[in-house]
């Protein structure tokens, strides 16, 4: 099996608890791999290591079979990178910025206008392509970063905090683009905090906490840890103090104002029982939402920051 990324015991520490502390990962080629972590958990450091902007203090790191080297043209040409901050030449138009990136990445001159036309259209920037970047909003600058990273159809696409500042329409489009890349066997590496969006697009993921990987695997494997539960949010008409539930099937309950977050065991029979219990304590229910646990629940469970599942 060929690996897009192989890391063994990689360290890049700025200070104790800051940076990357002994990360070992293997991402096969063609995966849409996501690294999920809280702010300051080391995700951006990981991106800088992958893109050769920094070197590991120790350990082995390989991207597409070679050690990332700063400014090595053969290596950098194979990457498309969207960092968390959008840097462009402000006086140039969006099209000129993207054209320059396409040219230096060896895209045939004849193909550039059509490729950029499609990408600007997908990003909803077609009518602003010729405007100076200095007139763009934050979200438009972010979209331009995606256009610049995708124009040469890179072997590996690296996205740092991809959802920041983007509208839902473009996130759906980005979802389609990433799925298409996955179907074509192109590797995408996503680092971010938006577990819901990442859960909708990634084929495998890892959770990072304080510079270490705390869980790793396919989406099914990661969700297996929470698959025996379901989340029910009960919105009450008026506030009452909800006591600790003492009936079978309810694993935990956490009250936030008139909303009670209840974790139930899996199975439809537990929902009416729980609602009966709410009625029995005198609660007047306005609305009920039930959903299956997702990547966010798995992440929170593994990193131990929400105790819903552990508070019984």
């Amino acid at each position, binding site marked *: 099996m060929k690996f897009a990324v192989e890391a063994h015991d990689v360290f890049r520490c700025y200070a104790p608890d800051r940076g990357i502390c002994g990360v070992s990962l293997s991402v096969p080629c063609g995966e849409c791999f996501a690294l999920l972590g809280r702010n300051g958990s080391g995700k951006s450091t990981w991106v800088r290591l992958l*893109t*050769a*902007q920094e070197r590991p203090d120790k350990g082995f790191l390989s991207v597409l079979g070679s050690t990332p080297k*700063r*400014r090595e*043209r*053969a290596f*950098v*040409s194979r*990457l498309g*990178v969207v*960092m968390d*901050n959008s*840097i462009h*030449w402000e*006086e*140039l138009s969006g*099209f*000129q910025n993207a*054209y*320059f*990136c396409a*040219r*230096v*990445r*060896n895209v045939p*001159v004849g193909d550039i206008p059509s490729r950029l036309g499609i990408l600007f259209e997908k990003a909803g920037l077609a009518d602003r392509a010729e405007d*100076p970047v200095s007139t763009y909003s934050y979200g438009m600058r972010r979209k331009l970063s995606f256009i610049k990273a995708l124009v040469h159809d890179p072997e590996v696409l690296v996205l740092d905090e991809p959802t920041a500042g983007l509208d839902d329409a473009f996130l759906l489009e980005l979802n389609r683009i990433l799925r298409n890349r996955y179907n074509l066997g192109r590797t995408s590496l996503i680092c971010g905090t938006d577990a819901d969006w990442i859960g909708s697009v990634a084929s495998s993921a890892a959770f990072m906490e304080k510079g270490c990987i705390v869980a790793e695997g396919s989406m099914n494997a990661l969700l297996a840890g929470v698959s025996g539960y379901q989340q029910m949010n009960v919105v009450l008409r008026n506030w009452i103090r909800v006591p600790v539930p003492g009936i079978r099937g309810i694993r935990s309950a956490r009250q936030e104002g008139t909303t009670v977050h209840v974790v139930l065991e899996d199975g439809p029979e537990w929902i009416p029982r729980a609602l009966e219990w709410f009625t029995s304590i005198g609660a007047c229910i306005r609305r009920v939402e039930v959903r299956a646990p997702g990547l966010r629940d798995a992440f929170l469970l593994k990193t131990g920051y929400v105790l819903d599942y552990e508070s019984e």
Partner: protein
Amino acid sequence: MNPSNVFQLEMISMLNTKRRLLLRTGMTLVLGLPFVLIELPMRVRAAGVLFLVLITGFFGAAVAMTRRKSDGRWKEFELLPVRLTEILGDFTLAGAVMDLLQLAPILALLFVYHGTIQGMNMLETAAFLCGTLVALNALGMLLGWMLQTNAEVHLAGALGVGCIAVGSGLVPLPVEVAGIVASMESWNPVSGLVRSLEACLGGSVDSGSGWGAALVPALFAAWVLSRALNRPHLR
């Protein structure tokens, strides 16, 4: 026009903003006009214009480089498959061309009002001007690359301009130091530019470099043309 290399990117970026272009050229003109209009000794006139060259060439390049670093554009280049030498060369060349555009009006006025249009002197001045601007831009970029913030680069840039002025014999020096400076003049393009400007303004005959002086502007023009017209060299 769409940029295909870093030189084109920088030139389009600088020329796209008409206001900034007008301000830069206008400010240089306003700062330089006293040296054209006011009756001054020829040596002071040449030194004044040379200070403008130092400020636009060295100081401007240093500030621009630090700004590239602080706004993240320099980091952005690390994610693009462009050689470092190509990036630095194109930055230097684009900076020198822009400085030439900025200085052209004041130099033209200086020659029209006070110069002696003598072919060889003009050629020699052009040669030293091109060489000086390229060298100053390269030095300024080096300084800007070493510094982190706008405040640092303004302080160090001003000191740098002073040091180059002293090292090029633009200011009166004690005899001991003047001897050292004089010994370096032969390879210092700024000193050469001072000499050739003085020759132009003083009406003395050419200094003997002959048609060889034409080589530098020709090479400079060829470099500019090759970057302006050519597409980037890719592997």
